[in-house]
């Protein structure tokens, strides 16, 4: 695909493995939502700091669905377009809680390492 997205280079790419967490959190906050809506919402939540190929969302959604964290259903969007809506399952909710907790713990540890004061005592 070359360099056609060069104008987005000032944005951060989505880290491996965090996309699933973002998707789950987005669906939890917004309720059932279609793929486009989830992508837009992730970009907005990140304050447009994240660069996201919307296409990469779909394999991630499929993986979550295969694992039973989300379920999908065809429906109609707010502006009357046919779209596939994803909603959180009970297992997905549990997974979200666990992964959010893990993530917070990991970032907290890293934050301590990286804090300028170096105050670890």
């Amino acid at each position, binding site marked *: 695909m070359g360099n056609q997205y060069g104008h987005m280079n000032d944005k951060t790419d989505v880290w491996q493995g965090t996309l699933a967490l973002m998707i789950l959190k987005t669906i939890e906050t917004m309720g059932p939502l279609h793929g486009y809506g989830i992508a837009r919402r992730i970009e907005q939540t990140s304050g447009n700091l994240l660069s996201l190929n919307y296409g990469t969302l779909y394999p991630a959604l499929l993986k979550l669905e295969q694992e039973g964290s989300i379920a999908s259903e065809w429906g109609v969007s707010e502006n009357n377009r*046919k779209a*596939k809506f994803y909603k959180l399952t009970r297992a997905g909710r549990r997974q979200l809680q666990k992964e959010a907790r893990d993530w917070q713990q990991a970032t907290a540890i890293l934050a301590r390492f990286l804090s300028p004061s170096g105050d670890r005592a």
Partner: protein
Amino acid sequence: MKRLRAWLIRLAGLWQAARGDRELADEIASHLQLNIDDNLRAGMHPEQARREAILKLGGIEPTKEAYRDRRTIPLLENLLRDTRFAIRQLRKNPGFTSTAVVVLGLGICASVAIFAFVDASLIKPLPYRDPNRLVGLFEKVQLCPQCPLSYPDYLDWKRLNKVFTAADAFEGSGFSLRTSAGAEMAGGAVVTAGFFKTLGVAPVLGRDFRTGEDAPAAPRTVILSYAAWQKRYAGNAAVLGQTVTLNGDANIIVGVLPRNFHFAAVGPAEFWAALHTNANSCYPQRGCHSLDGLARLRDGVSVRTADANIKQIAGELEKQHQSNRGQGGAVIPLTELEVGRIRPILIVLLCGAGLLLLIACVNVTSLVLVRAESRRREMAVRAALGGSRARMAGQFVTEAVVLVSAATILGLVAATWLMRLLMGLIGEDQLAAMPFLYGLGLNLRVLVFAAAVAVGAVALFSVTPTWRSFLPDLREGLAEGSRGSAGTTWRRFGANLVVLELATAVILLVGAGLLGKSFYRLLHVDMGMQPEHLATLRVAEPDSIRDNNAKVVALAHEIMNRTANLPGVESVAISSLLPVRGGNTMWIRVLGHPFHGEHNEVGYRQVSSGYFTTLRAKLLHGRYFTEADDASKPPVVIIDRALAEKYFPGEDPVGKQMAYAGATSPPMQVVGIVEDIKEGPLDETTWPTMYVAYSQDPDDHFSLVVRTSKGEHALLPTLAATIRRIDPSIATFDPRTMRDRIDNTQAAYLRRCSAWLAGGFALLALLLGAAGLYGVIAYSVSRRTREIGVRMALGAQPRAVYRLILKEAGWLIAAGIAIGLACSLAAATLLRGLLFGVRAADPGTLAEVAAVLGVAALLASYIPARRAASVNPVEALRAE
């Protein structure tokens, strides 16, 4: 759990590709539409709105690609696609495919079926605890290396040995069973009380014999086989405590054996009675040898140590007891006793099946190679276009897998069928002696064997064409237009393969020829009688009269008189034992010859006066028994030629006297000499045998021999019915014609099975070898069409073309036969134990095999040679 679920869904996705694709297309379309809507709302031009939306998505096709990879398992999907392609390729060439599948299937069928027999008899452990620690105990005398023990000897061995944790004795014996309809013979055995404990077998119902239950005073007890429990008592648990009358004695049923229990040494016994050594039985005598021993080795004791210990004990007993003179001992592993007889045959047959599999593989390999050869150009083009070698080799592998899978399925199906056929060929009688064969089947071990063969075949069929395709640089294949030198290389390689095939076929043909000849010679061995048109039946007189000799003889005469009056019956006789069975022996001495207590062991038969005329034996000198030789007259004896030559060298035995070895034995006068009759096994030299007059020395168990003018088969049921009418408490059993008896002796049936199977293998090998040769020559002719055309254009006659082609074939055939004959000389030594009346290096067989194979191979190469000779030179040249 989560991962597993995802994998299963992805696996299922393999079969739902079309539906998934449609749904994804819809979802992406909807996504773009939503994005475009937004873009339009933001004020974009419709064209630009659509372009931006697609850009933001990251392209439609890449998205679909990534999604598909996630939806199924890409590796598996590729494999599936390759397999479909391979199946398509193979279907495009049905001739190649069906030939390869059938040929390989045949090889797999033969080897799997034979392996299943090997598994059932040699690999699967016997159904006892630690079967490898069990041994059989025998006495060893000159005529008989594995002879039964006497009960006192058994007790001494048990008491004196330092090598066994337990020793027991048993004897297979038919019981005359009293039923509501009269008497019936049932298979059975008598065993000492510890027998089942020593084997490590516990009854499924009831209890084992208790210690001391084999004492003479103990009440008689019996354990049922599972089959007898089902058949005679409908599997009713209330059978325990009931009594059953065996040989006139009431026995209490105390247990039922497990369903899978078998003990080949006594055949399919229904009743296992505790041994009772009553004073009126012969058990208490040291000279009564009727028991087999069974023992369990102490930990750490080898069979050899045990054997040495027993031999030493037997040596001491020889010194103590006059009757034990010349009697050694032998300890033999139980496994060896049960399967030792069949092992050499199975090994030979497994080798044969292996060779057939080898030929089949070689045949298919050359087919695969020819195919690869014709695809060299395709491969070269693909390589030039950037196809990786791995990907191309992968295609060979996939094709091999498809081919071999089909052949394996075919082979397994055919193998189950072949196994059933072979079981039928073996027959009920012999199965009774080899009960372990009932465990035959496609079990896990057999399937693993089949899988191993299949994996080997896949490796062979994928490696050889790959190797051939990549050996010379691929560019060569492109440049030379796949003609000429590549053909030559293959021709040389293919020629080597054909020599291998022909040589293997020779080995199999020689083996089959030797076994076939042995079988023929065995059936045509001089029996000293005419076995055709003889009906035989075994008879047990009622137990109530067994101690009254006069009544026993009278009833025997009554039976003979009644049967003699049946229509079509020419003559009737009885004998204590039928021919080709071996059996009872006696120790004799010749009066007037020096005697120091040697054991002059000879075969022993009690026969009625008409025995020799009924068998149509040949009287050499003297006379036969007459009705007048009864209990009121001095004892008389007839001897066979072997006994006369051994014990009366250089004198005329008629009129001389002989006696049993015991000091009190009365003298018997020799009245006649007959030509040797095959009383013992067909494949053994005839034992010296003595015949005594039944009326002077009767037995309540005997066999009836009836000569008919016709229809001896039809007579069998009539015989049994006639005897039953005399007295229903007479038990009759084992009705068979003499021919049937001879054909079903172990010596005959073992050779029959092996000869038929080896013959079948050899025939297939011959066909495959000839087909392989045909393939190579036909290929060579097709490659040389142009050359032949040139030769003919230059004036060569068809005869010269024939010579050209047949010379090429002739070299291959000669090489194949020469190598094959050399190898078969070595292979035949493996057969030696199975041969009869023919040497392992039999020049006749070798010459016949060479001739048969030579003719078949020349025929196979004649067909392409004729095609070559009929080449039209003009067309051949134009075709290039």
